């Protein structure tokens, strides 16, 4: 199969990427729709022949993730292909939230501003490029919801059929916001880990399917690096002292670290110490638990939390999250569902940003770390909001609402005591 893949590829199909290499044992194999090492089942990672590149070249690129094309496994003409053009979302100075939490220099990277309102548009755009270059017939994923939205939309835009698998009990907005783009949305009786297992089995049987987070996962994961590039660029080309990132599979956190390392290696930022923190919901906190216990493997759990976009009980990159967090001097911590709701409300009331439950998790953990002293409150800190609160309205619907319901008269207004 692999030789056939190589024969069909056009020159430069994967940009400066040169091979797939195993993160566990270092074995390499050619670029193709492969994700697990044939020697040890370890995750395959993209290797590059890194180009020399300047800040000016990047700044002259499009206002989306393709400004970093030379550092992604995508062709030089990627910006001309039909895609959702994600990224370059706002980095906001969160002075009010910082004051509330006692953090002097705090920023929120608000990725709810992507085309389908979560960071998943970044990873999907890179996976879509791989699918296109590999000549895939079907673009597919197992998803906790946000990814389903992103895959279905990107497939529609690119004109490639999509098949999207979700757990049967997802939030309604995430179901509708997928189904609107595709007539092949499949609800599976089971939790995300069950859906994921099914997808892995289908990926092994069906030729020509690109499952974004299964058989083209090495490409897909690289899309998350753009979060790290953007944060550094938007801060004026430096790496923040501390970054707080939600952990589901753990891929995003490890890729932000990879991005920081690449920027240092390429001379685009100065080398400096930085710390990366991971955030989980207590009802699905296998990585936080392993961190506390001092383990380097992650014991799977059965998720039970309102933060469904983070509800992965068997996180593929969990061990690597532990590596990164320990290496950089960070912490993986968790907060319960009530703290998640409070986190959503706190961010909304202080900064005007309505986060989904995953954002509530990171804000809740940020607060906890600031209070415990695990986070240096005098150091520059960036916290990620990776999705939009409109997708998880139920989480806070019973906490907020009209202060009063009144008749349409000035008298009724003054009597209500609003001001």
């Amino acid at each position: 199969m692999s030789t056939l893949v190589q024969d069909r590829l056009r020159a430069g199909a994967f940009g400066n990427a040169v091979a797939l290499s195993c993160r566990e044992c270092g074995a390499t194999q050619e670029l193709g729709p492969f994700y697990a090492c044939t020697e040890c089942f370890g995750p395959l990672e993209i290797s590059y022949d890194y180009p020399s590149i300047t800040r000016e070249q990047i700044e002259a690129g499009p206002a989306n993730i393709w400004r970093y094309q030379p550092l992604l496994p995508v062709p030089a003409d990627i910006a001309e292909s039909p895609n959702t053009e994600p990224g370059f979302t706002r980095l906001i100075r969160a002075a009010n939230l910082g004051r509330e939490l006692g953090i002097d220099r705090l920023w929120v990277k608000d990725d709810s501003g992507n085309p389908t309102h979560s960071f998943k548009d970044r990873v999907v755009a890179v996976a879509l490029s791989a699918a296109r270059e590999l000549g895939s017939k079907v673009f597919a994923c197992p998803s906790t919801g946000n990814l389903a939205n992103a895959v279905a939309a990107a497939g529609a835009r690119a004109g490639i059929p999509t098949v999207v698998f979700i757990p049967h009990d997802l939030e309604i907005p995430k179901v509708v916001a997928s189904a609107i783009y595709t007539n092949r949305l499949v609800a599976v009786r089971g939790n995300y880990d069950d859906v994921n297992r099914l997808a892995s089995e289908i990926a092994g049987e069906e030729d020509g399917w690109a499952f974004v987070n299964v058989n083209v996962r090495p490409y897909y994961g690289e899309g998350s690096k753009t979060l790290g590039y953007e944060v550094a660029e938007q801060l004026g080309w430096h790496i923040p002292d501390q970054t707080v990132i939600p952990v589901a599979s753990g891929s995003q956190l490890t890729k932000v670290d990879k991005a920081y390392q690449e920027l240092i290696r390429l001379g685009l930022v100065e080398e400096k110490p930085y710390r990366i923190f991971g955030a989980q919901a207590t009802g699905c906190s296998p990585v936080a638990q392993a961190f506390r216990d001092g383990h380097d493997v992650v014991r799977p759990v059965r998720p039970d939390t309102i933060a469904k976009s983070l509800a992965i009980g068997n996180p593929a990159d969990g061990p690597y999250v532990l590596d990164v967090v320990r290496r950089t001097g960070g912490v993986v911590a968790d907060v319960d569902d009530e703290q998640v709701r409070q986190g959503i409300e706190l961010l909304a009331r202080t900064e005007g940003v309505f986060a989904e439950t995953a954002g509530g998790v990171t804000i809740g953990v940020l607060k906890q770390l600031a209070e415990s002293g695990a986070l240096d409150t005098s150091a520059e800190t960036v916290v990620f909001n990776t999705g939009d609160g409109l997708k998880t309205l139920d989480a806070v619907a019973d906490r907020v609402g009209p202060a009063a319901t009144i008749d349409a008269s000035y008298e009724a207004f003054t009597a209500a005591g609003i001001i």
Partner: protein
Amino acid sequence: MAVSVRVPTILRTYTSGESEVGAEGATLGEVIDDLETRYAGIRSRVLDDAGALRRFVNVYVGNDDVRFLDGLATPTADGVQISIIPAVAGG
């Protein structure tokens, strides 16, 4: 106990391309030993040098991840289906 084992793509070089093979054993460990006698080399792909399940392999007996059961000591009832699946997926 006679069981059937679903083989992931990357191990099918050992099973002549078969996606599902038969094996014998009262526990998962015994089933893997039996697979080794039929398809030499397959054991060390699934287990590490210490004889434990590799960390990026998920094995299911029926519908259950053996990490929630007794690992290699998990009983394998007659006729049960065992699935070996790469763990590096999702998210």
